[in-house]
């Protein structure tokens, strides 16, 4: 049985539908991500799980119990708030002891459990400090320790790393993964940062306009996006409008407007005349001065328009003959110069027939 069951959840604010008929279930010990742009309804969904907001339709079940009439203070769910919401008048110790005191844990036990929680987040010896004496990263750890100290069934994290700089963010991501494995608590993590979601989650629900666009493992979300929104939102993706000209067998042919005909792995439900979009990741596209001899390749002429040197890779923007621009990403670790092509160079753009995903409109 699923630990958290959300069924047909709907929340409206006036005529705006923040969460639109969402159903999903989350298992014990899972690290689950709600990913979407701001305003997609992910935070509203989280608040309904925590109990701060009530759904207009549908409901939330925790461990098989309908919690719609259970107040937030009685739900076995804790939240790490985006602003951390540490109590400024309490020391780190008192902040972390707060949920234990609310649960009337014996004073002798509180000491030991707070120390343990501090150790979990590597803040041993900081218990006497006050929140205003801590760095951003330390505050974040205290917020996590406080929310986990009495081992809730579910921990909700509302963009907890949004305020941290890139380096610290990466470090905290690794620590969160380790911590989640150690404590075994189910994490539901809200973020608008697709890289963060891909790095952290066991499963991701991509949300847009209050609906779940796709719910899958990170690699499936990245490699087989279900629709145009997911393909566009996760990572960078070249989206080429296309229609099917011949179908059946292993390959089908697509006509890309203004560019020409390409061969593409047959996708389910794509019949002759169907319209859609061919989604191609930049790292699956090669460019070179000559076309490699390979029957499985689609190739076109293009001209390098610009490039971005990103350290480990270089992103080339290539202008095709129809004026459309395609992004291709090449690793810099290959021997020779770090930079291979200059703007204005005539190049051959190619990709394997199974490199892209054809998404029906």
């Amino acid at each position, binding site marked *: 049985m699923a630990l958290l069951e959300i069924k047909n959840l709907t929340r409206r604010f006036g005529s705006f539908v923040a969460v639109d008929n969402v159903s999903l279930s989350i298992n014990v010990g899972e690290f689950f991500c709600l990913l979407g742009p701001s305003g997609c309804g992910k935070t509203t969904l989280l608040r309904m799980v925590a109990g*701060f907001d009530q759904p207009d339709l549908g409901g939330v079940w925790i461990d098989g119990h309908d919690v719609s009439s259970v*107040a937030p*203070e009685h739900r076995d*769910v804790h939240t790490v*708030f985006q602003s951390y919401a540490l109590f*400024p*008048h309490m020391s780190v110790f008192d902040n972390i002891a*707060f949920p234990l005191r*609310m649960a009337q844990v014996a004073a002798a036990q509180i000491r030991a459990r707070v120390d343990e929680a501090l150790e979990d987040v590597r803040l041993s010896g900081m218990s006497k400090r*006050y929140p205003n004496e801590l760095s951003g990263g330390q505050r974040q750890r205290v917020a996590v320790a406080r929310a986990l100290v009495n081992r809730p069934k579910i921990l909700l994290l509302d963009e907890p790393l949004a305020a941290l700089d890139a380096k610290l963010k990466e470090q905290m991501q690794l620590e969160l993964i380790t911590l989640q494995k150690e404590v075994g608590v189910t994490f539901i993590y809200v973020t608008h940062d697709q890289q963060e979601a891909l790095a952290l989650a066991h499963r991701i629900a991509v949300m847009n306009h209050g609906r779940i666009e796709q719910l899958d493992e990170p690699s499936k979300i990245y490699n087989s996006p279900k629709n145009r929104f997911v393909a566009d939102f996760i990572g960078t993706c070249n989206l080429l409008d296309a229609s099917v000209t011949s179908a059946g067998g292993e390959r089908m042919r697509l006509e890309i407007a203004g560019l020409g005909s390409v061969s593409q792995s047959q996708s389910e439900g794509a019949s002759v005349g169907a319209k859609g979009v061919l989604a191609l990741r930049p790292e699956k596209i090669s460019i070179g001065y000559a076309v490699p001899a390979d029957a499985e390749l689609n190739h076109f002429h293009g001209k390098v328009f610009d490039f971005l040197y990103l350290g480990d890779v270089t992103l080339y923007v290539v202008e095709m003959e129809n004026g459309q621009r395609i992004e291709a990403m090449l690793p810099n670790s290959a021997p020779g110069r770090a930079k291979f092509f200059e703007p204005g160079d005539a190049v051959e753009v190619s990709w394997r027939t199974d490199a892209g995903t054809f998404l029906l409109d």
Partner: protein
Amino acid sequence: MKVSRTQRWAVGAPPLLYLLIFFAIPTLIMVVASFRQPGEYGGLAPLFLEGENGTWRLDVTLESYRAVFSDTLYTGLFLKSFGYALVTTFACLVIAYPLALLIARSPAKVRDLLVLLVILPFWSNFLIRVYAWMIILGPQSAFILGLNGLLGSVGLEPVELLNTPFAVVVGLVYVHLPFMVLPLYANLEKHDPSLLDAAQDLGANAWQRFWRVIFPLSLPGVYAGAALVFIPAFGIFAIPDILGGTTGIMIGNVIKQQFLETRDWPFGSVLSMILTAIAVLVAGLAAWFARRSRL
């Protein structure tokens, strides 16, 4: 930005001058007066007396201090006034807190209107407002007639409220209430609502959220309001004059009497000095507590 010496003086001089003229110098005059002899017909005797062979000597005495501290009447009056001011401060806090919380939680538009209502009484004269209470608590008011009718119907003796300590405290609370509401509101309005969400999320019920989060965070406002109510209430004379009769007299009345009726200025000065010393002590205590709460 670098501030030049001249600029600093230009900004600092007017308030400094104000404090010097209206606080430091009068206090100094009072200190000197407390050591002088009372004049033959009231007021102060000359500070210098002419001796036998043309010398002058300073005519100072500790007599007024001796008189104040040897008579338990004055110690009692100080204690009583302290008690009234304490009860007033506490009553103001209990009434003002929910009001300030309500204003702070109201939508922005309503909030401004409610703050305006709190300061509205200041638009009419202080004495007129206190006289109004004389009528409300007086023997012929609808309030007293109704109250005594109610008491009579359950077999209790009728009560008189005017000219009692109760009437004084009612007047004190009424007049000083805005001085408690405003600093409390200013504090509560700044509270981060996510702290309350966090407290509730971590298992705190409404009562625990109040006592463990809202109230401790509002302590600087409580201390500021308490000082603003306690200090003026402690030394006031107009309210006990109007509402207190003979039983509701406070130390402020005695000081006023010493200066205007008995005309024993040195004695009045000693009482004033003690009053000021206690007020400074209370203000210092409030500031110390506020700083200790680390907010």
